[in-house]
């Protein structure tokens, strides 16, 4: 039996996970820096690394930017004492961080992040990529429910209830808001289905956000709710619920929740970029200038990452701008505004496409 393909796939997967986790760790830093800057503070700027920190100008600059902070945070999570409260349900208490962490790490498998000679750079180019992504990412809610329930105390419990209600409500609007994008991306009778690569390729002239702004807006709002970001951070709501579902967690178990949350943000930004911001396509109306071969692959990946980071910045920017919604407002917005809007949007687009195909094609 030939083990080489398996080995290569394994190396690729580990590389992808490593890169995404590092991006997630630096997203935490970015969050703290942006929070500081918006509030007139500096953010973390003291953590120095022995050798690199002593380089005359560069070391000082990196320290001021807080570049070493994620390393310190990660080490702290690993080496901290891990207290286990006496009142928890141990099985689910230990299971919950894993259940939250694994879907967050799995969704990246189908996310294309670049193209090389017309082929997608992706771990698994599935025809049902979007379906897989929605299915797996919605499993993440079990982590929150289990964490809230197993902790056996009131604040995590409330956080868990809110989280589950919110994520189920907004999943509907999210699923419906991406359908118009796929309707427009696929020609009648094509077999690409819900492939994410195909969606990006169809946006080489016009980004979907310009053509489908309403879908993009609904998707963005639902994405905020799905990733539990402010103004929809019901499960965490640190001013109301201590720390929400992860109140009783400490050390690396809390770290897993934390990394999962930020991985969700990074992957969510990636999905938004793929679906509505044209993926690695250059600008609307301009052909992509990426040359063939690996140079083009690297350039398109960098361009894609730039867009993702912009969206991540937008996430943080919103967080420090808008206050949290009340729980009933979240539910009302989800069920009475976003869901009908997404449905109407889908139906109108379908009718429009049907008429368009009949009259002009």
């Amino acid at each position, binding site marked *: 039996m030939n083990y080489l393909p398996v080995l290569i796939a394994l190396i690729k997967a580990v590389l992808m996970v490593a890169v995404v986790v590092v991006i997630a760790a630096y997203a935490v830093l970015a969050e703290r820096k942006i929070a500081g*800057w*918006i509030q007139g*503070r*500096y953010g973390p700027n003291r953590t120095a690394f022995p050798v690199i920190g002593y380089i005359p100008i560069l070391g000082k600059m990196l320290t001021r930017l807080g570049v070493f902070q994620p390393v310190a945070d990660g080490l702290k999570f690993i080496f901290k004492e891990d207290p286990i409260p006496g009142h928890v349900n141990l099985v689910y208490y230990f299971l919950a961080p894993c259940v939250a962490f694994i879907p967050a790490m799995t969704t990246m498998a189908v996310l294309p992040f670049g193209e090389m000679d017309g082929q997608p750079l992706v771990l698994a180019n599935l025809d049902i990529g979007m379906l897989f992504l929605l299915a797996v990412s919605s499993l993440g809610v079990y982590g929150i429910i289990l964490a809230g329930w197993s902790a056996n105390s009131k604040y995590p419990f409330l956080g868990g209830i809110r989280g589950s209600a919110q994520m189920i409500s907004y999943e509907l609007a999210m699923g419906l808001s991406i359908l118009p994008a796929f309707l427009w991306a696929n020609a009648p009778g094509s077999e690409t289905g819900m492939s994410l690569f195909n969606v990006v390729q169809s946006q080489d002239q016009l980004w979907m956000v310009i053509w489908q702004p309403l879908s993009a807006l609904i998707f963005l709002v639902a994405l905020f709710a799905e990733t539990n970001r402010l103004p929809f951070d019901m499960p965490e709501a640190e001013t109301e619920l201590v720390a929400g579902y992860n109140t009783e967690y400490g050390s690396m178990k809390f770290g897993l929740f934390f990394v999962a949350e930020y991985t969700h943000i990074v992957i969510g930004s990636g999905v938004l970029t793929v679906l509505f911001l044209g993926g690695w396509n250059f600008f609307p109306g301009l052909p992509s200038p990426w040359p063939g071969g690996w140079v083009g692959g690297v350039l398109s990946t960098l361009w894609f990452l730039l867009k993702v980071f912009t969206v991540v910045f937008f996430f943080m*920017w919103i967080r420090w701008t808008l206050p949290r919604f009340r729980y009933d407002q979240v539910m009302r917005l989800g069920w009475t505004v976003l869901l009908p809007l997404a449905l109407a949007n889908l139906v109108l687009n379908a009718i429009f496409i049907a008429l368009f195909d009949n009259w002009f094609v």
Partner: protein
Amino acid sequence: MAFKILERKPLNWAERTYLPQIITGLKITLWNLFQKKVTLEYPDVRPVIPEGYRGIPTLVKDPKGREKCVSCQLCEFVCPPKAIRIQPGEIPEDADYAHVEKAPKQFDIDMLRCIYCGFCQEVCPEEAIFLQNDFSLSGYSREEMVFPKAKLYEMGGTFPDQHNKWGKKQQAAEEAKAHG
């Protein structure tokens, strides 16, 4: 009537979506992102201490290096948390300022008890105890935080003496002796 009733207009369609308001908010936060930071990077940059600040209490000497405290123990009695402990002592006959007669043998301030009220400074008839600008004290044990006399003088230093009370007394005594 001194007040005005504002008419509340109903929100129009765009306002009811809240999106224009969100964009305005985003603009404000983005503007703030590039403003000057207000953080004082504390251990490196110290705040400017205003006049009349009540930091740690210390004993001071007069410009000639004489210890001003005469161990009258008023501060010990007035101290609300009883942070000050004084053992009065006598000044030996052959000293320069023998006519002051008394000086503290021991003068301890327990900085863990001190509440920085400034009563000791206010009550002192000799202007010998002053609250300084220093506000951050730390130590590894409780014993270490009871500051003895030597340390209090070291932290206090010398203060200008406007009255020169004991110098005048000495001078007057000498003049009286000269006139016989």
